[in-house]
């Protein structure tokens, strides 16, 4: 393996899972996420020599985001559609631990799906800050680097995203009393 390839392996590939999660939340469809990630990592490899930042994770996530946006622009994907039930089940909550009581398990599954659906229904710029902050545990500075906006904008977007999610959440809980708690 040549030098560039092995440096890339060591510095960038450890962030593949994070890239995949982001792509999945941005595109909201597993098949699209595969394409986005593959394209993003190829691009990252091609421009790896121009990387000036020590933060390879923020760098490659920024490329993932860019690939997602340019694919959207080109209309190659259907990502703007709302989630359907199948995607939710598949993309939403991961494995629900088995519960002794099948009814409790089903309630739990519903709750998880509801949360995935609420977040999936947020606008893209809200979704991305939430995912980067809550799932990837990134700092404001890192999120600013990934999303190419000032830190102040990250703060206000995050606040709006959380407020929107909270509002929907309360709406739903009032709706049937248990969808999200």
């Amino acid at each position, binding site marked *: 393996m040549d030098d560039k390839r092995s440096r890339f392996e060591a510095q960038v590939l450890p962030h593949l899972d994070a890239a995949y999660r982001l792509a999945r939340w941005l595109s909201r469809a597993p098949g699209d996420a595969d394409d986005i990630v*593959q394209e993003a990592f190829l691009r990252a490899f091609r421009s790896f020599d121009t990387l000036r930042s020590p933060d390879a994770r923020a760098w490659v996530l920024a490329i993932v985001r860019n690939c997602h946006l340019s694919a959207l622009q080109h209309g190659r994907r259907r990502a703007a559609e709302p989630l359907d039930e199948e995607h939710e089940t598949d993309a939403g909550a991961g494995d629900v631990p088995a519960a002794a009581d099948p009814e409790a398990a089903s309630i739990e599954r519903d709750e998880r799906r509801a949360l995935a659906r609420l977040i999936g229904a947020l606008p893209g710029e809200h979704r991305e800050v939430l995912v980067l902050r809550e799932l990837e545990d990134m700092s404001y500075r890192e999120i600013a680097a990934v999303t190419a906006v000032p830190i102040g904008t990250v*703060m206000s977007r995050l606040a709006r995203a959380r407020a929107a999610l*909270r509002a929907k959440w309360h709406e739903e809980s009032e709706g049937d009393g248990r969808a999200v708690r």
Partner: protein
Amino acid sequence: MQCAEHLRVQALFDGELDAVSAAAVERHVGHCADCRTLLEELERMRGRIRRDLEYGEAPRELRSALARALDAEAAAEERRRSPPVVWRGRPFWLGTLTGAGAALAAGVAVVLLAPLFFAPLPEELIAAHLRSLEPGRLTQVISTDRHTVKPWFAGRADVSPVVADFAPQGFALVGGRTDSLGQQRAAVLVYAHGAHVINVFAFLPGRGEPPAQASRRGYHIACWRGGDLDYCAVSDAGWEELGTLRELIADLGARDAR
């Protein structure tokens, strides 16, 4: 009415405050019920999100497909670097650059500017220009016919630029290729003007304002906005020649748009 301290409370929650500010915000939360509620809700929401939404890992098939694609890409780059192939028997640019690429690479200051991750645009353009002058790297599609070159870009580059041959005006279309520019796959049109190669890069705006005119190491860069794309022509040809080509392409773009 929501408390004006919400953003600072959020920053406290996210661990973004220094010790002094954190203490101040905590004191505020101590006697502000609104902010206390906010803090509790943030905590509850994070708990739910982290419990329920972990997407886990990239699928194994993706991982192995990617490894194969990277191997292929690395091998292709290796091949492009190695054998000195004389291109179409007209190496009119050879001799201008041996060692220049290395000198440039060594000389590029490692600075962090507005676009956080990449070298400044002019440096990147010059580096791409020099790379293109290495044997066998100038074109990926060789044609003077815009009906061949334009469709070639589809699916390969991120953009679809104006393509035309201006041989009668002295700028012969040689072909095209794609180059990495920042995170993009830029479309590159290659023109020959006398003994000069002119690379015209077309890419999506977003790298800041490209320079209308810039010079680096004896090469000239002329940039303009055409439609929703940025174009940058790079060459050792003179300003006047670059200006003429810019007008030809920009006029054509304006006509196409009508």
